[in-house]
């Protein structure tokens, strides 16, 4: 019987070690609480979010819960609960809905294609006052018809936004200065 050579064993070990990690799947359907993501994740269906704004501050559909991870939209749509201008947040609101949030995070990425639409305030929220976001990438995402800005950045730095489409946002900002981004 022929014995395996040490080099072949080493090669097998390397191949096993560097095999790409499989992203966690976010299944399509209706969600009524925030989806936290702790690792690379991807949508495998359209998501409808009926997350009630019950917590002070942003109540997100999907929240980055770790640094240096990626969310792939895979061509799917994330839809909130409102159609502007009806039902939109007013500036005095202390609780409000957003699509995707990355707060106190660094090195996270949202990658399209995909659509984020119909949220109570912002489609994407990066950072909050005193809770920065750094080195964020948002790429090839369509952010459409959200009440306030399509994407809001606060205390956000060293980030890159490219090949995105911000369309028909800020249709119900109720006096807040808002827009695409």
């Amino acid at each position: 019987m022929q014995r395996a050579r040490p080099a072949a064993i080493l090669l097998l070990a390397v191949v096993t070690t560097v095999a790409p990690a499989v992203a966690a799947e976010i299944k399509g359907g209706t969600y009524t609480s925030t989806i936290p993501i702790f690792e690379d994740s991807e949508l495998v269906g359209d998501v409808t979010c009926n997350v009630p704004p019950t917590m002070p501050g942003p109540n997100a559909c999907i929240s980055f819960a770790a640094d240096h991870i990626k969310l792939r939209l895979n061509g799917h749509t994330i839809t909130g609960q409102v159609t502007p201008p009806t039902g939109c947040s007013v500036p005095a609101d202390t609780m409000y809905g957003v699509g995707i949030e990355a707060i106190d995070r660094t090195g996270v990425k949202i990658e399209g294609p995909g659509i984020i639409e119909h949220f109570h305030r912002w489609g994407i929220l990066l950072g909050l006052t005193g809770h920065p976001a750094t080195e964020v990438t948002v790429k090839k995402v369509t952010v459409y018809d959200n009440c306030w800005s399509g994407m809001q950045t606060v205390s956000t730095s060293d980030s890159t936004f490219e090949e995105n489409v911000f369309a028909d946002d800020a249709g119900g900002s109720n006096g807040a200065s808002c827009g695409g981004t």
Partner: protein
Amino acid sequence: MNTFYGNGAATSKANATTSNNFGLGLLGVSQDNLIENNKVGGNVNGVYLGGGGQVTGNVIRHNVIAGNPPAQVIVTFGRPIGADIQNFAPAGTNTFDDNYCLTYAGAGPSPCPDVRINRENGENGDDRPSRLAPRDDAISMGLTTLKLMWGDPAAFVNTVFHSGRMLPLISSALRSRGN
């Protein structure tokens, strides 16, 4: 390239003659950002720079900013309701360079109208003017010291809005600085 189309409402502020809505806005403390190679059209305002004196050091260049606001919005709400570039920052505190734009409202010399750029498709078909190569001044701006922002409604700092081809040049600039 990012595109900003049809964003904002003329009626966001009740009974106002100007709108504070926009395609792309820099508000609060927004400093040292590079906004490059974007298309901004059909919004109430195209690019909006807020007041307060802390929207500074931003470079807005090589963008196509036109059709802001749409004609029907002007008919209904009056011409002052918006502009391609609406600038409430102090004159000279931000740089507008080679943007295709038609209307401007704000302090200082108007950067619009400017229709000089060659808008033939760039090599990636992204309408980037081929003669407008990134220059060292903007590349070095991307390397400025991070400024922490607290208590601001919005802050972009050293943020880059651009087509994807800027990054290799930034890398090359970093290498050359290390030599």
